[in-house]
């Protein structure tokens, strides 16, 4: 498979209390190298505070990197852009736009004509199962529905890669499961390249072709586990449990609180 996204030797150091005598450097990411193939679903998992979200935001171009290179389709990434679609944990829908207007925003930025925007938006609203809510404002939607809109918004302008930052982290277990299933269905149909950050082992295995395990801060890649299971995955199968064990052990196992 063709290389889609390539990150080479990425490091990030935060400076806190800059300009004061207490200023100090906090390394968040250390020499992260990662390649995502075209059409591949990769999840990044790691303990909280390991810099996995920072990593994703750097790839999104929203946070500056300290050193390293990022290539998308062979071209170096500079700043944010429509070639990457971002889904945030906090949904980040514009409260002053309806569901449809939110989805149209990216299309408008892309320069899609009005009539077409409308059609595409409708198609993606159907895709995430929100027909009938086109003209609803976000504050009337539940968390799960909001995140469906956010997924539709990011998919609608057809970015080369979808970046998802713990997108289901704020949802209750059942809603979370529903959205995981939905995302799996969508992915099986569209085969979009996805880079997905999570701290949930089962979620990581259920969705991914490959699970990338990060270490504690400063984040480094400690292991990559290829998940070779037919989709949709059966989360109660023995093989699934075996993968769960493998990921948990890579994260430090029971000693580190993963069981």
């Amino acid at each position, binding site marked *: 498979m063709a290389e889609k996204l390539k990150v080479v030797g990425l490091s990030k150091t935060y400076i806190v209390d800059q300009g004061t005598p207490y200023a100090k450097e906090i390394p968040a990411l250390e020499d992260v190298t990662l390649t995502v193939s075209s059409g591949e679903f990769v999840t990044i998992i790691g303990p909280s505070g390991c810099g996995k979200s920072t990593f994703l935001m750097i790839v999104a171009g929203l946070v500056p990197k300290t050193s390293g290179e990022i290539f998308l389709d062979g071209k170096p990434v500079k700043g944010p852009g429509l070639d990457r679609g971002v889904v*945030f944990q906090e949904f*980040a829908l*514009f*409260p*002053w736009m309806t569901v449809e207007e939110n989805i149209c925003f*990216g299309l408008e*930025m892309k320069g899609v004509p009005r009539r077409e925007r409308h059609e595409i938006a409708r198609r993606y609203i159907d895709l995430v199962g929100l027909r009938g809510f086109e003209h609803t404002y976000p504050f*009337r939607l539940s968390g799960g529905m909001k995140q469906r809109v956010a997924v539709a918004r990011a998919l609608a302008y057809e970015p080369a890669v979808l970046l998802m930052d713990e997108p289901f982290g704020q949802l209750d277990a059942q809603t979370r499961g529903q959205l995981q299933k939905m995302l799996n269905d969508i992915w099986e149909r569209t085969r979009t390249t996805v880079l997905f950050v999570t701290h949930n082992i089962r979620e990581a295995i259920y969705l991914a072709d490959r699970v990338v395990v990060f270490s504690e801060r400063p984040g480094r890649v400690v292991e990559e586990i290829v998940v070779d299971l037919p989709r949709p995955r059966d989360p109660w199968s023995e093989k699934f449990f075996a993968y769960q064990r493998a990921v948990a052990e890579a994260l430090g196992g029971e000693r580190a609180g993963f069981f």
Partner: protein
Amino acid sequence: MATKPGTHALPVSSRGQVIGKEIWQSARPILVVFAVWELVGRSGIVHQALFPPFSAVVLRLYELGARGLLFVDLAWSLYRLAVGVALGILIGTAFGILMGASKKIEVWMLPVLDFFLSIPGVAIYPVVVLLFGLSNKAIIVTLAFEAALTVMMNTWTGVRSVPRILIDAARSMGASLRTLFYRVMLPGSLAFIVTGYRLAFTRAWRILVATELMGGLGYGLGFRIQQGRQFFDAALVLAGVLVIAVIGVVTERTLLRWVEARTVERWGTVT
């Protein structure tokens, strides 16, 4: 997810009923005040020439209205208010947004803003009169000054209140600075901006009356009160005060309310 939004079978009172109830609830205490005023005025505790009853004031108001003077005064006052506040809103919004958008501008403007905000608008008026003479222009400039400061403060707060994540979301979709401004910063800070406009109206209204009381400009509600005092016409003074109160309530309650109902309330940004 099968039910359409907005369909419900709950019994609800009509919009008109709700509004009617609200108006009655706020009018009731005012009517009591008028009744007490009438009783005190008639009782003779205070001489009627000094404190005429409510009915006498209403009669005086009717005379003023019939002569057309009331409307001339009203028109002048509202004209000064409208032009002054409009100018203030334009200047204040622009500078408020600049302050919110740029840290450099904020660092320079905030102390200046704080400094001027601590000066009561009425105290600025004599300074403005020195520059512009005892004129309409002086009043308008004073109002614009006060309104601009108020609007600036609120707009600045509003722009800073726009969640970082929404800006990031827009940036991730390749939004230009211009798009960020019009489609994210502006609607995102609208709740604060509209509050600022309302506040500006209220403050400007107070200053307007005060400046009209001070200056001999010939027309205006404040001027009419001042004239009433000079001619020992208590009913005229109270009639002026009454109109000022009514106009104040009406502008505060209705003006910009519809903007809020159509924007921030619809979005759920405020309730």
